[in-house]
């Protein structure tokens, strides 16, 4: 660990402004071994209490977390957690998020893993519990009372009769010098006074009054402005950069070229924009792109890396004996994170050290990437998280951090890089992957599913850079570091236990691997073989990565099976589910929606211009990280093909709820984001390049839409494990809406987004 003094001194400053601060005292020899979360060695040992918690002489509790806030509410929820476990008011907690100089390496803030990681019996929660018990133990000799007779409350340890001592007096700014105690007791949910209560987002006042510092607002002394010049076509490489083309542009400081990375640096932002626009670069014509129209067929023809998730090895026979066999194929496009703010970062690279202010989800991996690009030892690089606009996954934050590092490295001065909208949408981010998913299942004469086979196909290129792959995002690749590609490989029999992190395995099968059945359903004859092929575009996790695409296919296909069996979609699901928690959310949603049990589609189709219907979808997110059921009610204008959501009813179980206010906000946002993605969002391209480069070509539902009422049943399982709630709802929206459309019209849409044109075509095909 570092000395308490240096950490504290650093922390008194606004992170963004302390640039002249020497790195040296912050970087002690590597103390810890290989970290958990698949992280690398860090100078901050997660097994030591002082890595997580410091209590000042003034009693203020400072907590250090490797899970940061992008607007999803982790700042507030983690502050509640610390206040609860250490028994102090919320305003006595200072939470320091994601800074490689002071916070433990918790990998990436993603995948709805912050709550499972930091709110159960390890890491931040366990550190806070350890600290509370340590303070009680310190108070025992001080008060002359055995520890088991002492209680912690409001920043004091008290004995019966009113004698008490404050945390500040006990610790007096010293370190705890203790290991994380895995036996320290968490405060029981029944006694919670802060955690589990609705606490408004702690940053809301700063946000609405324009005071909040985003990474876009970071300004450091001597800072220059950079812009990047991306290739005009996929696969295009630099032939020549004509620096003469920008000579004389006011304020231009430097043109930077590193292999195929091209950027400009100027005194002012508008000068950098002008220079980037005017810089003449000769590029090769690029590799060309497969036709978008035939892309889903194209995917299936590529060599693939295959993973067999389950295989009961009897699917063929069961299907041969089934009364009916249904087949359907579902398609999901590439979609963009489309952050409202195009990504931005500031880097200050010198001969021997570098500091980067970044909105990355992964400060430690980004540190490694910057070290590689700048040719510095990793310990000499510091990455400080400063929030950007909502990212929903791997938006342009990592790429622009590398952009800033390359430009600053070239000029050895601090450089701020702001991507343009087109930089972000055509070249900045790693899209959510396109998928084509083949489903096949058999029903017996009673309408029970007897076998289910699913073959999802998806695409991949690059991804999170991790600790050693800066080329997994565009900047690193342009600078000469290769991205991760797909090496074709045949599948082998599944080993160990069921892995369903991508929800490739439908909820309705037993999910047996090695004799152990980890699935949530009843269908015993099962086979899921997933194929991944190379993508022409960079891909990466986008809110509910692959889980959303797979669930769209599973839940719509389940609806098709239900319709074929002439069964009510809720009852049909319940017949094929066995996990009590998913059963409970399905029942709760149906009850809250006053679900009218009958088969879909409605019997009175084709009357009037507006068709109305309802649909359900459910999922055990990542197999076991949260349970949700969603009922959507929609209107379909059969003349225009326009789909409008009328109402959403949801039931959700994510274990104990840390902050019901924050969770509700996440549910509402996830629901509408899911609707926007289901109805309109699609990355498009021509034969050379991406064509959805701004908000007129990439269609996001604006504030002007009529927002459907959203009813939530929140099941608070206080005694269970804490699960992630940020991605669970969005996973089922396209499926629920697609099923509601079918109920309303009898037309099945198997391709996202459900545009008016696709809706009309499906209506015509129906008749």
């Amino acid at each position, binding site marked *: 660990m570092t000395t308490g003094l240096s950490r504290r001194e650093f922390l008194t400053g606004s992170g963004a402004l302390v640039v002249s601060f020497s790195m040296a005292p912050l970087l002690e020899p590597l103390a810890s071994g290989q970290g958990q979360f698949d992280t690398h060695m860090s100078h901050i040992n997660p097994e030591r209490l002082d890595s997580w918690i410091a209590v000042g002489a003034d009693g203020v509790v400072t907590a250090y977390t490797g899970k940061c806030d992008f607007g999803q509410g982790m700042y507030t929820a983690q502050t509640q957690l610390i206040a609860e476990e250490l028994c102090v008011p919320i305003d006595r907690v200072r939470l320091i998020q994601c800074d490689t100089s002071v916070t433990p390496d918790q990998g990436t803030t993603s995948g709805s893993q912050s709550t499972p990681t930091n709110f159960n019996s390890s890491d931040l929660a366990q550190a806070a519990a350890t600290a509370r018990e340590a303070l009680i133990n310190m108070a025992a000799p001080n008060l002359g009372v055995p520890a088991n007779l002492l209680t912690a409350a409001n920043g004091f340890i008290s004995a019966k009769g009113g004698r008490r001592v404050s945390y500040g007096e006990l610790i007096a700014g010293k370190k705890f010098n203790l290991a994380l105690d895995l036996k320290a007791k968490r405060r029981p949910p029944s006694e919670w006074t802060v955690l589990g209560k609705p606490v408004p987002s702690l940053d809301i006042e*700063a*946000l*609405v*009054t324009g005071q909040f510092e985003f990474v876009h607002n970071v300004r450091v002394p001597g800072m220059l402005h950079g812009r990047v010049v991306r290739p005009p076509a996929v696969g295009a490489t630099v032939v020549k950069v004509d620096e003469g083309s920008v000579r004389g542009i006011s304020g231009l400081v430097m043109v930077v070229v590193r292999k195929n990375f091209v950027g400009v640096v100027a005194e*002012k932002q508008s000068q950098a924009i002008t220079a980037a626009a005017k810089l003449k670069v000769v590029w090769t014509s690029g590799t060309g792109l497969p036709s978008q129209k035939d892309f889903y067929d194209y995917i299936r023809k590529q060599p693939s890396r295959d993973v067999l998730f389950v295989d009961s090895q009897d699917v063929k026979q069961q299907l041969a004996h089934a009364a009916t066999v249904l087949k359907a194929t579902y398609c999901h496009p590439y979609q963009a994170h489309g952050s409202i*703010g195009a990504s931005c970062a500031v880097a200050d690279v010198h001969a021997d050290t570098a500091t980067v202010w970044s909105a990355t989800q992964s400060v430690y991996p980004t540190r490694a990437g910057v070290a590689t690009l700048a040719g510095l030892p990793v310990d000499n690089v510091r990455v400080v998280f400063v929030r950007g606009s909502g990212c929903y996954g791997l938006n342009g934050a990592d790429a622009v951090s590398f952009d800033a590092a390359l430009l600053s490295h070239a000029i050895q001065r601090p450089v701020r890089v702001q991507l343009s909208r087109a930089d972000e949408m055509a070249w900045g981010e790693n899209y959510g992957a396109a998928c084509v998913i083949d489903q096949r299942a058999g029903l017996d004469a009673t309408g029970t599913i007897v076998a289910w086979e699913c073959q999802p196909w998806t695409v991949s290129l690059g991804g999170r850079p991790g600790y050693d792959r800066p080329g997994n995002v565009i900047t690193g690749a342009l600078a000469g570091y290769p991205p991760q590609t797909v090496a074709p490989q045949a599948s082998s029999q599944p080993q160990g236990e069921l892995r369903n992190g991508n929800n490739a395995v439908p909820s309705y099968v037993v999910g047996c691997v090695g004799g152990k059945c980890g699935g949530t359903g009843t269908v015993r004859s099962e086979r899921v073989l997933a194929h991944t092929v190379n993508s022409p575009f960079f891909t990466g996790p986008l809110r509910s990565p692959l889980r959303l695409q797979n669930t769209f296919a599973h839940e719509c296909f389940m609806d098709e099976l239900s319709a074929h069996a002439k069964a009510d979609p809720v009852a049909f699901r319940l017949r094929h589910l066995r996990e009590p928690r998913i059963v409970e959310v399905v029942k709760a949603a149906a009850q809250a929606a006053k679900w009218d049990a009958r088969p879909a589609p409605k019997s009175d189709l084709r009357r009037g211009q507006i068709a109305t219907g309802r649909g359900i979808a459910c999922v055990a997110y990542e197999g076991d990280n949260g349970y949700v059921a969603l009922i959507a009610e929609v209107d379909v204008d059969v003349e225009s093909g326009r789909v409008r959501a009328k109402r959403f009813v949801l039931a959700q179980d994510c274990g104990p709820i840390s902050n019901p206010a924050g969770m509700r906000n996440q549910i*509402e946002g996830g629901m509408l984001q899911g609707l926007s993605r289901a109805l309109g969002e699609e990355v498009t391209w021509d034969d050379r390049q991406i064509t959805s480069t*701004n908000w007129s070509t990439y269609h996001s539902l*604006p504030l*002007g839409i009529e927002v459907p009422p959203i009813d939530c049943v929140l099941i608070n399982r206080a005694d269970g494990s804490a699960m992630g709630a940020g991605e669970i709802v969005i996973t089922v929206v396209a499926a629920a809406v697609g099923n509601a459309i079918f109920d309303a019209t009898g037309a099945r849409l198997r391709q996202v987004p459900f545009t008016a044109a696709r809706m009309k075509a499906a209506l015509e095909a129906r008749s």
Partner: protein
Amino acid sequence: MPTISLRVNGGVHAVDIDPETPLLYVLSDELHLRGPKFGCGLGQCGACTVLMNGRAVRSCITPVGGVTDAEIVTLEGLGTPAKPHPIQQAFIDEEAAQCGFCLSGVILSAKAFLDRNPKATDDQIRQALAGVLCRCFAHARMFKAIRRYENTRHI
């Protein structure tokens, strides 16, 4: 470079800048204001919105040379955390934000519209916000907050 005089949030600022420079960059780089944000640079999303003589304007496509006579108000010019403007208070009360990056567009577009159309219907408010984006999709709360502001004005 010519010196341009700007009236922003009640103060007068002299800036040496090319008059073609979009107002947004002057506000954020020269005056260090955090309210107006760069979202798209194309006037498509609203994140850069400021009030100019009470009207919502997209500062990312407004050359600074053309606004020297105007009274410009940014999100921070409306109110402070200690004393928020009633529309900001309504957003606080409804917890109407997630990342909050879009708020200049949402709050200032709504305020400018309601100030001119005090009896606006829900449909009219929606129409006024048809060109504003929030990618966290906090739409429901934002709409409630706007309605709350509208209602408090009529008490």
